[in-house]
């Protein structure tokens, strides 16, 4: 076999060369029917089919799943933690969205 033993060989070992790095995928697994898919982690794969196969091997070696979703990480849009205040704080003082805000007599049943 034609081997180049120099670990500095630019072809594969240079960090600058990311063109051959397989894209990153996020993996979601449904542990059993009736439950939602949950994010379990990520992995690299050349395409979606390979991502599913790799997810099977990496995340379901002990029957942890009955269904797998994979999505390329770059396709996910995430909220920015810096905006958490404006995004989530308005819900904080809306106590009238909770049942306990409404006072009813104790004698009343099933409500």
């Amino acid at each position: 076999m034609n081997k180049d033993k120099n670990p500095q060989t630019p072809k594969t070992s240079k960090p600058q060369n990311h063109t051959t790095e397989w894209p990153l995928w996020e993996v979601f697994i449904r542990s059993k029917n009736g439950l939602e898919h949950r994010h379990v982690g990520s992995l690299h794969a050349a395409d979606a089919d390979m991502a599913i196969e790799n997810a099977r091997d990496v995340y379901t070696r002990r029957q942890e799943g009955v269904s797998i979703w994979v999505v390329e990480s770059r396709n996910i849009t995430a909220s920015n933690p810096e905006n958490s205040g404006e995004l989530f704080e308005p819900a904080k003082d809306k106590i009238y969205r909770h049942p306990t805000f409404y006072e009813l007599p104790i004698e009343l049943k099933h409500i």
Partner: protein
Amino acid sequence: MSPEIKLEDAFQARIDDEQKIEPKDWMPEKYRKTHIRQISQHAHSEIVGMLPEGNWITRAPSLKRKLGLLAKVQDEAGHGLYLYSAAETLGISRDELFDQLHTGKAKYSSIFNYPTLSWADIGAIGWLVDGAAIINQVMLTRTSYGPYARAMVRICKEESFHQRQGYEIMLTLCQGMPEQKAMAQDALNRFWWPSLMMFGPRDSDSPNTEQSVKWKIKRKTNDELRQQFVDITVPQAEYLGITIPDPDLKWNEDRGHYDFGEIDWEEFWQVVKGNGPCNKERLKARVDAWEEGAWVREAAVAYSTKIKNNEVKRTA
């Protein structure tokens, strides 16, 4: 106060409040760097750790042992992958991580620089090396960085099988012929001290510990974890009927712990520096695997590009 210091205070307050830090949250640069170093070292250890055990897959003494060992080694590959993904959430690429391993810039656990000379070594590794790893990893399930903690939970669920299959190998040997028991003793003799070294330098020689504890990366010091390991493991060795190779090992009633002898720190640092029995062999095996697999990675990309282009043409 500079804005940077305010951010650091707020960050420390979140840690003190037991909140987890997630990838997109602000974090001090040193917290990020420390995590990249620690998580990637951990990932490399899982990956390099496959080599000494892989050495025995084709020579396992029975089909049952072969299946167990194959499954364990496959788990270790999985552990490496969980951890590489966790490291990548901090903004370093997989290729960079591999490059750091292959050029010797990144370290991995020194224990894997010792050879596996007999089948009993596979038993000793599962029992002692995975046993030591479990103690460290159970602590890390509560580490402050979310992706690292989650990877640890997943890993810990799988580790118990590793240790039990190792101990069962030891037990079988110890209940066998005198020659088999001698093999088990020999493996313990060779793996005991390197296992204690897995917890790292003494606290007094470990300058990073204080910061790691403050950031709740670690919740126990090296010496505390090492003591915990010794206390748990001594009765297990007694049950096997083999002797831990340490004349200073004895129960200390006052402390409620075992006292044990001094580690050969000269050996520890030599192996860390790359002069262990198998450092060169291990690294070469990794670099060869990476380079010889290049054509597979490239072919897979070429294939997926071709499929994508065909789809574009068809829908155009």
